[in-house]
């Protein structure tokens, strides 16, 4: 994460030419501002940074940043981000998206990215609603919530994404809020610096279809300074408690998938196509059966 620029970068250096398409007052502005600041604080090289997103309002974010960007498919930013990181471990890879993208259509990928401990950061802008499709309930919407697709009220129980993250083996789990950019910036800095899969749930209200901003402000509390981030049971306790705990719930150090692959490649006996073909020589007749690891 070194910078090639001689002067310390400013948050505005990470702005692209495109203006965000978000509605005035959207929480995603606060998240984006926090991201610019975190990038500046970390002095990230925009040329060596990739932001991967899915589909939704928040997934438009890569367009507004001067780094490399990959605006993928609905629900698919995590496997794409994994491919980017495994192919080039020197890159800073940040996946972003909304709660519908990450926990409805993309939920099948989340636990696997987490348990693999790919060295990427996953930032979810959680507004508890589908904004881009105009207000249907999402997996994090409250029970009984009335919305165009649930005119009699939501019959389902919201997904606890933080508990899901801890249970899945994420090695960094935190929550921030778009209306507290200072703290969110600090969380992003720590998440990006973390070696392994870091997950940040950023409360980010949709002011048009699900504006809970004022209510949420009364429900947030900071994680206590003496909270033991290495204690998984305590992390579950915080995640499952009512209200919103802001801060780092869980953090552990364990080898990342890219580090393990690097070790595997280094340990493998060097070979090439000609040597591989030789092993199939008809005169040797050794081609049938499972190959042994190199």
């Amino acid at each position, binding site marked *: 994460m070194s910078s090639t620029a001689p002067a310390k970068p400013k948050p505005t250096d990470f702005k692209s030419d495109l203006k965000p398409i978000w509605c005035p007052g959207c929480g995603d502005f606060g998240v984006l501002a926090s991201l610019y600041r975190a990038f500046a604080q970390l002095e990230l090289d925009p040329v060596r940074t990739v932001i991967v997103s899915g589909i939704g309002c928040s997934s438009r974010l890569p367009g507004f940043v001067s780094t490399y960007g990959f605006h993928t498919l609905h629900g698919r930013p995590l496997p794409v981000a994994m491919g980017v990181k495994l192919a080039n471990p020197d890159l800073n890879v940040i996946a972003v998206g909304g709660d519908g993208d990450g926990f409805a259509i993309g939920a099948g990928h989340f636990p*696997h990215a987490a348990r693999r401990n790919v060295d990427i950061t996953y930032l979810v802008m959680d507004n508890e609603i589908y904004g881009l499709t105009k207000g249907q309930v999402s997996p994090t919407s409250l029970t009984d919530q009335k919305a165009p697709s649930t005119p009699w009220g939501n019959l389902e129980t919201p997904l606890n994404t933080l508990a899901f993250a801890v249970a899945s083996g994420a090695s960094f789990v935190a929550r921030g809020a778009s209306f507290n950019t200072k703290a969110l910036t600090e969380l992003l800095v720590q998440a990006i610096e973390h070696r392994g899969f870091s997950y940040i749930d950023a409360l980010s209200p949709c002011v048009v279809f699900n504006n809970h901003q004022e209510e949420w402000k009364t429900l947030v509390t900071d994680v206590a300074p003496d909270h033991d981030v290495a204690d998984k049971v305590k992390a579950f306790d915080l995640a499952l408690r009512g209200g919103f705990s802001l801060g780092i719930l869980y953090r552990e150090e364990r080898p990342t998938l890219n580090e393990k692959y690097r070790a595997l490649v280094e340990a493998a006996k060097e*070979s090439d196509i000609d040597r591989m073909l030789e092993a*199939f*020589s008809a005169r040797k007749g050794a081609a049938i059966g499972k190959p042994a690891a190199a």
Partner: protein
Amino acid sequence: MTDRPSHGRTSAPVRASRRRMGAGEPVGENEREESLARKSVVIRLAGESGEGVISSGDILTQAAARGGYWTQTFRTYPAEIKGGPCMYQVRMGDEQIYSHGKWVDLLVCFNQEAWDLHWESLGPEGVILYDETAVEIPESYLSRARPVRMEQLAKEIGGSLRAKNMVAVGAVAGVISFNTTPIEELVLRRFAHKQGVADANIAALHAGEDEGADLKGSLAIVEPVEVEEDRVLMSGNQAIALGAVAAGLDYFAGYPITPASDILEWLSAKLPSTGGITIQCEDEIASLASVLGASYAGAKAMTATSGPGLSLMTEVLGFAGAAEVPCVIIDAQRGGPSTGLPTKTEQSDLQHALYGGHGEAPRVVIAPVSVEDCFWATIDAFNYAERFQVPVILLTDQGLATRMEVIHKPDTSKVELWERKTSAGWDGDYKRYAYTEDSVSPMGIPGEEGGQHVATGIEHDEWGHPGYTPEIHLGMQTKRWAKLEPLSNGVARHEVYGEERPDIALIGFGSTYGPVREAVDKARAAGLSVGAFYPRVLGPFPAQQVKAFVSGATRVIIPEVNFTGQLARLVRGECGIAVESHAKSDGLPFTAEDIHDVILQEATS
């Protein structure tokens, strides 16, 4: 190739070759007298999965290859892990083998079901070896059937049933007069540190050889001609994995699925030794999505699947077409629809590969025709993907993917690799999707200064910024399709076998090539004007070349292994010509005899 044999025969003159399924040459009276030895022989081993059928087949195949024979195998598998009937067919000969053969010369029955399921495939002179304790052969076949004490001898010699396969292999070797030296060498190699086991296996081999002594040499096969060139023995899946390595594969992601899992497994073991990595993903969507991520980061990336996986990948395939991200997708087709026939063959994903997905996303579809071609077609796939920044689907099928074949060792000095056009050296305002002369835009690779852009599946302008105007959409769709034009204009390979401008024209794709080739040889030898056209690239379709090929034809025949005649529909649509569809959907590959019958039927109708 013969007509359907009569099974009511009681006398069986078990001797010289009246039939030759190998080179497709007519068998003249003179030739028959020249040599009693066969140019190729079809051996089928059948029994319950797990009782030595597969290992016997593997040993025979390896030994045949080692002994200098050309070989091709054909297997049927139960879809279940334990038990179920299985069959392993080995065809070996002194000339290159193009198809697995229809009529069985030597049937080895490990159990009663083997006889019940396979007796109808016996050729008119077909010989039967069977375990007397397990199989009852009808009296009318006894004259050409010999019991082999597989279980008894294995127990006597090795103290267990483990050497049963060697008894069976020995018995086969005896009947076809196959020199057992290569088999012994394989045994010694396999049990290099277990002399006792090796000795028992070799003893079992020779004991088997002595069984059915009066049939010894009755299906004698000609000694292979010593050749200098290198040959290799491999499956279609292995040839693809090796072709990918030769093309510079950096990243492979896949999800286990029959019959494509071998590629995932082989690359998992071997790719790290070239610096690349292989990962098993949570599903096929993640597999292809991560392949796109790796490709975006500059890697040569591939996935492999079968039809059900291709269905899941289709959204990502469309994205790759829209965002112009190079990738290679192997589809080892199996019987469909839905879960279908996981262990049987079919060519029913053609139209999915060509058109699958919403909107109209460009892609290239390639179909190799043989195990050897799988190697080269995979290199083509990477070259097209990288040069045209497009997803490339390579279609094989269960038969081609899993069969073992002796092939010419690919000459890697002939491998030519095409590189991606990148933003390196771009001057000024970088445009990821810039309109260019060849419609291929320079791709910024992370790490490259000034190449920053957002790759996206949303319609976009030259910078990659979302844009939905008529000009942008028409411009970008035109660009995305126009870049593939070189493939229609000489870049893509195709092959005409037989007459260049035939009276009876066959058009096929993929694994039907072998049987069609043998049938064309036979029909031409009988004086018919026949030729076969095999495009390697099916999308974009080589319509001009096909039209020229059929310009003098009175009949155009399209054999394919599916229900609705997908290639026939494609040729009609692309070329506007009338064709006869000969589609079959029984989960099995064509034989040369099937195709020859079709040619004769069309020639006389």
